[in-house]
């Protein structure tokens, strides 16, 4: 169920250049049903900025009633968010959207998780849940450069992890597709989150494989009422547009026209 919660910040730290990890405590955590869901955060009680900010959930600790979000402080809203400190309360709406289906990969099978930049965070909770049920996870994580790489160690603890940087300052130089080509197609499912060009490249390279992609789009309400965050489907006809916030953000490969 979607609830509006005043969550308490329990920690906030910068983990890479302009990349922040924030832990939030509140009853909303108990409502999260799948990895890849997101929350809609009001960073200020004033009209500046006015709209909420959609941010993916990176990790959940149900026992502690705590969730972790990882975001890039880039615009006005996320910069204000990055100034919050432990003990501050934040208005959070969620959990929103449909996450990654972990049931699509069985115990003993292999999954490849491909993330790009600020699309990496939701893959962390996904990998935790997949590995917990016995799925072997391989991670391919792409970043611009070494200074914005995060969670390398955390992912490595869960499974084989390949870091890729565009400028070659860390890990493999180039794009996630370079590593994908090396690893081949011997896996059962792929899951991906990142910028549109990356999702397009991943879907093309893994054509015919079972996969799930998480999309991003400018949002208004976050619950499906305002029709701002639509994306086009490959089907055409009446279902030509689907809503990223409430129909997605995760869709099976091939559903969204990219």
């Amino acid at each position, binding site marked *: *169920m*979607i609830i*509006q919660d005043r969550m308490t910040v329990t920690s906030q730290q910068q983990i890479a250049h302009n990349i922040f990890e924030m832990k939030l405590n509140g009853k909303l955590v108990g409502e999260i049903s799948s990895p890849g869901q997101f929350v809609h955060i*009001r960073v200020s009680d004033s*009209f*500046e*900025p*006015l*709209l*909420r900010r959609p941010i993916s959930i990176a990790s959940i600790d149900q026992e502690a009633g705590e969730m972790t979000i990882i975001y890039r402080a880039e615009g006005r809203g996320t910069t204000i968010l990055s100034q919050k400190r432990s003990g501050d309360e934040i208005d959070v*709406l969620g959990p929103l959207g449909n996450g990654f289906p972990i049931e699509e990969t069985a115990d003993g099978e292999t999954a490849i998780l491909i993330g790009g930049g600020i699309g990496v965070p939701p893959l962390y909770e996904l990998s935790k849940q997949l590995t917990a049920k016995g799925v072997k996870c391989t991670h391919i994580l792409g970043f611009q450069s070494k200074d914005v790489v995060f969670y390398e160690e955390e992912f490595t603890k869960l499974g084989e992890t390949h870091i890729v940087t565009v400028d070659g300052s860390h890990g493999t130089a180039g794009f996630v597709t370079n590593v994908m080509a090396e690893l081949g197609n011997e896996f059962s499912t792929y899951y991906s989150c990142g910028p549109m060009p990356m999702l397009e490249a991943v879907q093309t390279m893994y054509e015919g494989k079972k996969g799930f992609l998480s999309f991003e*789009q*400018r*949002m*208004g*309400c*976050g*619950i*499906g*009422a*305002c*029709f*701002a*965050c*639509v*994306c086009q489907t490959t089907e055409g006809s*009446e279902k*030509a*547009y689907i809503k990223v916030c*409430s129909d997605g953000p995760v869709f099976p490969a091939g559903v969204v026209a990219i």
Partner: protein
Amino acid sequence: MNRLSIELPGLQLKNPVMPASGCFGFGKEYGQLYDLSLLGAIMIKATTLETRLGNPTPRVAETASGMLNAIGLQNPGLKGVMEGELPWLEQFDVPIIANVAGTETADYVEVAKAVSKAPNVKALELNISCPNVKAGGITFGTDPEIAKELTKAVKEVSEVPVYVKLSPNVTDIVEIARAVEAGGADGITMINTLVGMRLDQKTGRPVIANGTGGLSGPAVKPVAIRMVYEVSKAVNIPIIGMGGVTETADIIDFMSAGASAVAVGTANFVNPFVCPQIIEQLPAKLDELGINHIYELIGRSHRL
């Protein structure tokens, strides 16, 4: 005694607060969050004769104390609304105001005729002010004579009272208001969004794919208040006021300016519970002002 009830043509409102068209879909999303029967009414998303897919993305952009949108009247079309949306809303004790849009008079007439027969549709809102579609919409709302003729044509076929939604993107909104009154409108809803634009700092190009978008949110409230004030002095039909309504103080302002009820738009995106919250807070606000029944507020600004 219900201190919040308001009676308007076709509408017995429990309270004067309703979500504005285009900001509430057809109610299903908000219906997961609270009981829609708490609302005074619901203005559903615009209905056109055929399915409309709307504009390309990005469709929204944030601005200072507001936002721009250019959704482009995406909706499932008359058949989809009649069969897929309105029946679901019948479970709630709430009057529906159906927003009717089109690209030519015949479209408006056909949609109005059909949708006004739905049992829970108690009034129509004639959308002659959408700034985000290429044909129709706002072109009907900027020429007084055309606005009057369209109002007349829709009044002839509608089974329920007709409210006309005015555009603020005109030189003289009073002239348009008088024209639709002369055309037989039972009420006015105002204001639709103000046409605006935001540019991308890096590319210099508009952020919204459509180029322009409609500005809404707290930023537009002073414009809306001024227009409601002017129009309410000039016409004898009731006004449902909107434009930046976010808290109870805004309800007081709009009704004082001359509105008989208010609609909440953008604020639903910021706080999805805003409508029931401000309805609940309203009696205390009336106490604070020494007002017995909310009716006493209407047009207070003109009496001073």
